[in-house]
């Protein structure tokens, strides 16, 4: 089974790297130095939220506790995202070395990979890989001769819950509870797994850490834009000739990316997965960066033949399925938004009702407990607004107009 669809290797994440390099470098310098390198690199979280990694790690390493944990969030559930699959299958050394470096920096002794249940087929090879690392003393006791540096990694499988990609829901499920998000604060950096300080980092973030420790923060900061340093792995799917994983510097324009993947007659691009935003053709000169069009890497392309209402319906069905049901705005709100889409589909709607639903969406963005409900109205609002004409005003459109 061929799962390799890496299409473009860039100069950062996919640059040359050998297993153990970052760990060797890390144990020869001080923990503080690693934090300074990360600060210089301005690395932000690659899962999508974009929290500065140096801040998260400084706070976790400064927290006082009998034990700390580092969790690698490999619960890659956002529709259209598959970069972590490629990283874990082809570059496990980057991810695991990044975790060991993290363990050293934070003073943690246990690393946990939370691997989504859908990726169970890679469990065996990852565990074999960890076993090799143990043999080479890259894991275990007194790693590479560094007295007192003990760190090991275990893998826990998720069981098909999108919401567990949210860090507190992930921790809940690691503890053996339903994967329902917690209120924040307290944040996991203080009260995480088993009540101990815990840093939860995305797979790609940890891979970037390995390079930064080895090559320096200023090297990393040479790439990208002012506010978004380094490069990003984009998972490209949909209507294009060359879908796959692309490493591109932050600041790449959407139009440039479309050219690269050989997309033709593109009508819209959904950036950031189902919970992201739908960008119409008129905005293709916008840049992919935290400060402009922010994303965890999902890029789904739709050509002229696609029905955007159908796309929206697919997304809303997803959210109705995946809402954990804990808080009301998300549990009820997503159902209402989906009902709205179905009304439009049948042509049984009023504009005042649709406007009310948009308001409901904005309420959900404010009132939901976690990122799922806060972002699930994004496609509803952005597709209905950006494709207003297609959905409401074009003539022969499946009876969608109010008669």
């Amino acid at each position, binding site marked *: 089974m061929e799962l390799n669809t890496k299409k473009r290797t860039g100069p950062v994440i996919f640059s040359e790297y050998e297993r153990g390099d970052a760990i060797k470098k890390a144990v020869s310098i001080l923990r503080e130095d690693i934090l300074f390198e990360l600060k210089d690199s301005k690395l932000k979280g690659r899962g999508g939220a974009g929290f500065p990694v140096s801040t998260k790690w400084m706070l976790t390493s400064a927290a006082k506790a009998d034990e700390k944990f580092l969790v690698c969030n490999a619960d890659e559930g956002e529709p259209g995202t598959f970069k972590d699959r490629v990283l874990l299958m082809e570059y496990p050394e980057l991810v695991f070395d990044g975790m060991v470096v993290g363990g050293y920096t934070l003073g943690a002794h246990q690393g946990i990979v939370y691997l989504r249940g859908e990726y169970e087929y890679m469990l065996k090879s990852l565990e074999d890989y960890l076993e090799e690392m143990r043999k080479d003393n890259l894991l275990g006791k007194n790693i590479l001769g560094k007295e007192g540096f003990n760190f090991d990694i275990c893998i826990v499988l998720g069981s098909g819950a999108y919401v567990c990609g949210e860090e507190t829901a992930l921790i809940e499920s690691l503890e*053996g509870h339903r994967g329902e998000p917690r209120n924040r604060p307290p944040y996991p950096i203080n009260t995480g797994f088993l009540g101990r300080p815990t840093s939860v980092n995305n797979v790609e973030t940890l891979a970037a850490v390995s390079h930064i420790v080895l090559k320096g923060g200023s090297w990393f900061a040479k790439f990208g834009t002012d506010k978004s340093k380094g490069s990003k792995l984009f998972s490209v799917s949909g209507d294009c000739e060359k879908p796959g994983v692309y490493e591109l510097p932050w600041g790449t324009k959407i139009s440039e990316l479309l050219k690269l993947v050989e997309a033709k007659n593109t009508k819209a691009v959904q950036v950031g997965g189902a919970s992201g935003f739908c960008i119409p053709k008129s905005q293709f000169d916008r840049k992919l960066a935290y400060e402009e069009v922010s994303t965890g890497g999902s890029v789904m392309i739709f050509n002229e033949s696609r029905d955007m209402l159908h796309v929206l319906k697919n997304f809303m069905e997803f959210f109705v399925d995946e809402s954990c049901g804990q808080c009301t705005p998300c549990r009820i709100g997503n159902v209402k938004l989906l009902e709205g889409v179905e009304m439009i589909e049948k042509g049984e709607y009023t504009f005042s009702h649709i406007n009310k639903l948009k308001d409901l969406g904005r309420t959900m963005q404010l009132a939901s407990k976690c990122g799922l409900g806060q972002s699930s109205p994004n496609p509803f609002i952005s597709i209905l607004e950006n494709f207003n004409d297609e959905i409401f005003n074009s003539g022969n459109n499946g009876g969608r107009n109010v008669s």
Partner: protein
Amino acid sequence: MFVAEKNALSEEIESYVNKYGSDRSALLMILHEIQKKHRHISEFAQQEVARLLNIHPVEVYSVISFFAFLNSNPKGRNLVRVCQTISCDMHGKAGVVQAIERELGIKIGETTKDNKFTVEYANCLGLCDMGPAMAINDQVFLKLTPEKAVELLSKVK
């Protein structure tokens, strides 16, 4: 359930507890092992897990009912999950599903009479670049056509 079966299941669960520990944080992996082997987690199994982890059986049930991949009622011997998310949808998921439904004579979400297959939808399998995709048990299959999907099913025992 016969006493011998119960004893065997208890022993099996004990071996998982030995492997993953008796703290509650071991629950997900223990349930995963049981699910993988028996394709469901029976009431008796739930009680045994609860006893060994020293928690209430309802706590175990609450976790099972939360996760899409864990279930307390038996399913078919082989679980087929077709990705329904947009990238796979655009590349022909509907045709694949239709072919499977016709071939097996069931609707999605159902189990065949001979108990050989349960067919379900799955949300994004992370194979968007090679859709339509589906998983048969823990193996994934890519770039499906209706014909190819049916052929894959015919090879399953």
